[in-house]
């Protein structure tokens, strides 16, 4: 789906393989895994974005530095990257993550907005947007952002997880929280902590149901 947004651009087969490998392998979390599968399913004869080798190298280096925890260096590198290649939302989202980590929500919001200006359906940016909105108490807007992320990419597990947290703790919709934690678990397969939360939520939802039945 994401790749359709770049349909004006075409990639030679070796470069396409490289993009798919990077999308599928370079990620550290469920999101990247899902991004990889999305890229694969959206493949075939559709257009692919052009990612110059120099851009890929620069992005990979900045990502590795960020993964190693050197946010200061990574921030400078992503900013430099975006001066040369401004149309890649992944770099904007990484800046948003860095800013949010530094408690600079305003800058994080600007980076998220920049990513969404390139691709309004970019799930990692929508997930960051939801997190920032929740932190400010805008729970319903946060929910809308997360829901847009899972609508755009149903395999994007992190937004289901965050919808679980939002609905359980902040909106007190335990049944909805349960559904999203179950969807998350279905996508990632084996999260022992979430498994315990699901068991707890099932008990509480059933108890609420019994109470409601007695009241009726």
């Amino acid at each position, binding site marked *: 789906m994401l790749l359709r947004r770049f349909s004006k651009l075409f990639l030679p087969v070796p470069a396409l393989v490289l993009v798919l490998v990077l999308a599928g392998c370079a*990620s550290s979390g469920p999101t990247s895994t899902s991004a990889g599968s999305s890229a694969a399913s959206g493949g075939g004869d559709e257009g692919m974005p052009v990612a110059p080798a120099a851009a890929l190298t620069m992005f990979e280096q900045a990502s590795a530095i960020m993964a190693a925890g050197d946010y200061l260096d990574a921030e400078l590198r992503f900013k430099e990257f975006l001066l040369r290649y401004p149309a890649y939302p992944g770099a904007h989202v990484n800046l948003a993550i860095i800013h949010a980590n530094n408690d600079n929500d305003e800058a994080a919001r600007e980076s998220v907005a920049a990513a969404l200006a390139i691709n309004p359906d970019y799930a990692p940016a929508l997930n*960051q947007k939801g997190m920032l909105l929740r932190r400010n*108490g805008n729970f319903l807007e946060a929910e809308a952002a997360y829901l847009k992320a899972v609508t755009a990419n149903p395999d994007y597990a992190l937004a289901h997880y965050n919808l679980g*947290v939002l609905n359980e*703790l902040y909106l007190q919709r335990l049944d909805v929280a349960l559904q999203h934690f179950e969807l998350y678990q279905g996508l990632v397969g084996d999260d022992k902590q979430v498994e315990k939360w699901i068991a707890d939520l099932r008990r509480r939802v059933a108890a609420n149901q019994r109470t409601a039945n007695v009241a009726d």
Partner: protein
Amino acid sequence: MKLTQPLADSMKLKRSLMEDVIEVYTDAADYGVAEVTTAATFRLGEVYQQFSSDLYDSERPAELDEAALGQYELLLEEQVFPFEEKAIDLYKANADRAADGVYDEWVIKSFERLAELMPARYAKMERSENVVTALF
């Protein structure tokens, strides 16, 4: 104020002081202004949490052997439990206000306390990629 032996005397004085504070905060909690209510509710929770913590950390009788000390601590835990539960109930009352759109610093602090006291239920932070490794 540290609770020392004899515990009954020490607790009596502490509870008396605590009840004065509780009365003030309870009045404030009923004030009808959201931020005053959430602040007073949080402070009330703190009073009970501090009391339970002080009780748990109170001076142990010197003359007890190991077995008797074990029994004493079990009894102490039973005494501590209702105060900790009361603190949790107050923090929960604040946290529940989030669903009604009240999310001030006291509600946020209440969530933080609940995450410490009931981590299995409340220590749930949103998750994000550590780093996005795909360009788009």
